[in-house]
């Protein structure tokens, strides 16, 4: 072919004013997608969509919108260029939570649900999310199984006596279902603990995106996946059309244009508890770098 064009545009960001926290306690096997209330006047480039992806360890009977997020990834998609970025936030990061005071970042979900968690992470990075996607681990496992598993490029061999004693070898590793979730949950076996775990979560996100992109041109595949998510989505506030556009945006991401960083920090002690004191200057730098084009050249 003489020329190739791969691009996508969305009109998702403007006019997001509804507060759409679902009613009642969602089932833990369901995804929850919440539009952020943008009445705060945050200036966001409408070509970049920001989604705060939250992995939750909600147990059966628990409301995942009121637990403590176990995995936090701020994902930006530049719908014009196909670039995407993810900033991993260690769950124990000690940050100001609006209206609550300083606490671990993941406590914001417990205190104020997805909206408060979104604002807390948004304030840290200086970029507010347009959506908060909550995925209990069971739902994430189902999602990965639904797309036929993923492949990750594992930088190091590691194992976890509780979650996966046999471990994962270094190199290309194919993982599926709950094993993929466990890959993203192991912390103690990793040399840099929560920081490395956050990086592994980004490998899983890359794997999911690559699988979606590889199948996007199959007849009816995106429609089928969108329908599957809709059937397991715990909100009626995000329209099917909107979800279809988001799914297409994910499918159009160019793997060569994905950049990821994990927010670093030092280990501190607050009230006898071990916490991460995040590098807030780096957080702002990541936000500034990625705000307009979902790209971070240097972590």
């Amino acid at each position: 072919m003489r020329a190739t064009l791969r691009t996508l545009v969305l009109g998702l960001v403007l006019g997001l004013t509804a507060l759409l926290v679902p009613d009642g306690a969602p089932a833990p096997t369901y995804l929850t997608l919440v539009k952020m209330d943008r009445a705060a006047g945050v200036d966001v480039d409408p070509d970049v969509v920001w989604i705060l992806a939250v992995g939750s360890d909600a147990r059966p009977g628990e409301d995942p919108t009121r637990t403590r997020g176990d995995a936090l990834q701020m994902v930006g998609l530049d719908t014009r260029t196909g670039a995407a970025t993810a900033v991993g936030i260690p769950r124990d990061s000690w940050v100001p939570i609006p209206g609550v005071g300083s606490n671990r970042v993941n406590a914001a979900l417990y205190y104020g649900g997805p909206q408060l968690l979104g604002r807390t992470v948004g304030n840290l990075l200086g970029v507010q999310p347009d959506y908060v996607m909550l995925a209990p681990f069971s739902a994430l496992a189902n999602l990965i199984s639904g797309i036929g598993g993923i492949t990750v490029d594992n930088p190091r061999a590691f194992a976890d006596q509780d979650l996966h004693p046999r471990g994962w070898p270094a190199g290309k590793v194919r993982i599926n279902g709950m094993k993929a979730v466990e890959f993203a949950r192991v912390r103690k076996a990793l040399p840099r603990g929560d920081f490395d775990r956050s990086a592994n979560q980004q490998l899983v996100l890359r794997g999911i995106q690559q699988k979606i992109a590889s199948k996007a041109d199959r007849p009816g595949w995106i429609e089928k996946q969108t329908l599957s998510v809709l059937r397991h989505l715990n909100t009626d506030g995000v329209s099917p059309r909107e979800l279809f556009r988001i799914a297409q945006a994910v499918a159009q991401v160019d793997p060569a244009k994905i950049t990821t960083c994990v927010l670093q920090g030092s280990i501190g002690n607050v009230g006898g508890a071990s916490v991460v004191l995040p590098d807030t200057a780096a957080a702002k730098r990541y936000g500034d770098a990625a705000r307009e084009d979902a790209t971070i050249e240097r972590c």
Partner: protein
Amino acid sequence: MAGCSGDGADGERDGRSRGEHAVETEAVLGKVRGALDDASAQQALADVTAVVDGWIDGGYGGDYPRTGFDEAFSSFTADARELALGQPGVMSNAEVGGSLERAEITSRSVTVDLLGVEGRPAGATAHVLVTVDLAGGVDRTDEVRGRLLLTPGKDGWRVFGFDVRRGEEGA
């Protein structure tokens, strides 16, 4: 499932778009996912095909030489239109239109996958294949192949994204 029926914008009946195209569009209903009855799916097929035809005719058909191709994207969202206009070598004949004497569309087909929710269409992927003969300052036969991504709105279906390739036939 092939063919279409109903009273689409161009009066499609049997999978052939019968507008003023020199070559009829072969319109095929592809995969239908979710709750959408046959009549609604056929209507969506007709409507989406009409949008795709507008792009094909405006972008690759018409009289030459010419340099104006904006009308090809009248059913694109504003951002999608801007992006498409920025790709004059792919999304239309704009790159060579000023030097052409003739451009003839020799084949055109569209297969439409649909997402249906609660009986209504919520999204569509139009898989498109167009062949066009160019003559004049450029003499070659091009093939345009790819996907247009659409959602329905109050004013009809709109193209919000695309993934399109263009090259010489057989290349």
